[in-house]
C-alpha cells in the first residue's frame, strides 16, 4: 500500500498520540509523533517536509499550536497545518485559519473528518469532498443568495461565535440562530464549519 502522505502529529497527550497515529496508519498515512511543539522544532531540520502536513493540537504545555504555526510562518517554512481544537473552541480555530491553517478539526473527530482535512491540506486542489476549491466568483454567487440576517449569522460564525453568543449579539433566540445556521451551511454548500470559515476568510468577511 502506498502512503497517502506524511503526517507530523504534535499532541502532548500520550493516549491521543497512540490513538490518532494508529488511526492514521490504518488509513495509510506515514505518521511521526512529537510530544510538543518544541520537540517538533528541534527535530525539524532533520525532516523532509515535502509532501507532509502538520497536525497539531492548539492547547499544549510549552509552545502552543498557534505559536508554532506563527513561528513556522515567520521562518518561511511552507508546511500545511491542520489544527485540532476542543469542541466549541471555534474562536481559536478561526485564529488559526486566519494565520493560514489549511483546516481545523474539532476533537473528537471521525475517520472521515480527519482524512478529508489532511487530504485537502496535502493537496489543496482537492477538497475534502473531492471537488476543487470553489472559485471566488462561485462563492460570491452563493453568498448573494443569503438573506441579510443569514449573512449576519455567517459573519458571526466565521468570527468564531457559538450559537448562544451569536444570539446575544444579534438579539434573537439561539433557536433562531440555529435555523439560520442550517440555511447558511446549505446555501454556501459548506460541509463543515471549517469549510465555512475558509469561505468566509476567502470572501474577506472579517478583517
Amino acid at each position, binding site marked *: 500500500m502506498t502512503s497517502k502522505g506524511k503526517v507530523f502529529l504534535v499532541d502532548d*497527550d500520550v*493516549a*491521543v498520540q*497512540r*490513538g*490518532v497515529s*494508529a*488511526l492514521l*496508519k*490504518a*488509513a495509510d498515512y506515514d505518521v511521526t509523533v512529537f510530544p510538543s511543539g518544541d520537540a517538533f522544532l528541534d527535530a525539524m531540520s532533520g525532516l523532509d517536509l515535502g509532501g507532509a502536513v502538520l497536525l497539531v493540537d492548539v*492547547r499544549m504545555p510549552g509552545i502552543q499550536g498557534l505559536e508554532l504555526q506563527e513561528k513556522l510562518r515567520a521562518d518561511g517554512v511552507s508546511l500545511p497545518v491542520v489544527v*485540532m481544537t*476542543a*469542541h*466549541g*473552541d471555534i474562536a481559536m480555530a478561526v485564529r488559526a485559519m486566519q494565520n493560514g491553517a489549511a483546516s481545523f478539526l474539532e*476533537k*473528537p*473527530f*471521525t*475517520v472521515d473528518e480527519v482524512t478529508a482535512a489532511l487530504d485537502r491540506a496535502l493537496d489543496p486542489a482537492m477538497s475534502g469532498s473531492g471537488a476543487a476549491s470553489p472559485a471566488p466568483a462561485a462563492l460570491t454567487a452563493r453568498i448573494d443568495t443569503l438573506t441579510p440576517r443569514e449573512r449576519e449569522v455567517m459573519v458571526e460564525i466565521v468570527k468564531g461565535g*457559538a*450559537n*448562544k453568543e451569536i*444570539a*446575544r449579539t444579534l438579539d434573537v*433566540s*439561539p*433557536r433562531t440562530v*440555529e435555523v439560520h445556521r442550517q440555511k447558511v451551511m446549505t446555501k454556501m454548500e459548506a460541509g463543515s464549519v471549517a469549510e465555512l470559515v475558509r469561505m468566509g476568510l476567502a470572501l474577506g468577511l472579517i478583517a
Partner: protein
Amino acid sequence: MTGQGDKMESERFLRSVINASPNAVITINESGDILIFSRMAQAMFGFSEEEVLGKNVSILMPEPDKSLHDGYMRRYLETGKARIIGRARPVSARRKNGDAFPAVLHISEFEISEPDNDERIFVGFIEDVSRQKATERRLEDTQLQLQHAGRIGAMGEIATSIAHELNQPLTAAASLAGAVSLTLKKKTFDGKEDALALIDDAVSEIRRASGVIKQMRDFLRNRETERALHSINRIVEESCLIALIGAETDGVMVASALDDHAGSAMVDRIQMQQVVVNLIRNAVDAMQGTQNKQLTIATASAGDYVEMRIADTGSGITDEMKKRLFEPFATTKEDGMGIGLSISKSIVEAHKGEIYAVDNHPAGTIFVVKLPAAKEDA
C-alpha cells in the same frame, strides 16, 4: 514429580493474574530485592523486568525515600511497626528516565513457609495518579479564576475545562476505534492481535473519561472549606441578578416570593449561586417557545430545611428526560452540555441537601432545592 508440575502451573496462573492487574504489581523480599515486576509496572516505570529483577526496590523512588527505604524496611522487620503496610498511601515514585510522579501505593505482606525456607514477601500495588493530579489542578485553577473574576454565573467555564479533559480520552478512544474499523475492513486482514490491543486501549481511554467525571464530582464534594453561614434570600437575590444579566429574558415576567423567615444555611456561597443561576437559566430556556413566561423564585423555611423553588411555565420535562435529568451530558439543547444539573446535584448533595423537579400547573416545571437549616443557637 506431580508436586513440581502443580507448582509451575500455579505460578503461571499467578503470573497471568498479576499481569492482568490494572495497577502495577511489584513483589520484593525482606532485603528489598525485586522478585516480580508486572507488565503494568514495566509500562509505568519504563524498566523492563530483566532490568530490575534482583535490584533494590529503592531505584523506583526519588529522594529522600530512595536513601531511607532500607532503613524503613529494617525497622519494620525488627519492630513489626508498619508505617505503610495495609493502607493505601500517596507516595512519589520515579520512572526510569528520572521523572518523579505521584502514585498511590498499597502494600500487603505474605509469609512463605517452605521446609527449608521461611521468608516474608511484600507485594506492592501501585496506581499512577499523575493524570488525576493534573486534572484536579486544572479544575482548581478554573474555579479560582472564576472566583477572582467574580464570574459566578459562568458554569460554562468549568464545563469548558471539563470538556477539554474529556476530549483527550474521547479523541483517543474514537481514533482507536476508527483504527480498528479500518483494519478490519482491509482485504489483507492479518492483524487480529493488533485490533484487540487497540480495542483494549480504547476501553481504557473510555474509563479515563468516566474517571474525569467522577473526579469532577469528588472535587466539588470535597470543597468544604469555603462554607459559611449565608442568608438563603441573599443567595437567591444575588443569583437572580447574575442569571438574568445577559440571558435572553424578553417577555419573561419575574416574580419573587421570598420568605423573610427563610433563614440561613452553611453553604459555599459561590457554589450555591452556581446552582441557582443554572436553574434560572434552564427555566428561562424552557420558556423560549411558550406564550406565557412566568418565572417565580421563592424561598421558605420547611422544618429542619430551608427551601428554594424556581418555577417556570415552560415546556415541562418529558418522561424520557426525567429519568436522566441529573446525569451528565443529558441534554435536549442544541448548544447544551447537559452538565448544569449534574454539577448542581453534586453541589447540593455535598451540602447534605436535596434537589428535584416537580411538574408545575398548568404547565412548566418547578425545581426544588432543600438545604439543612443552620440552627439558630443563642
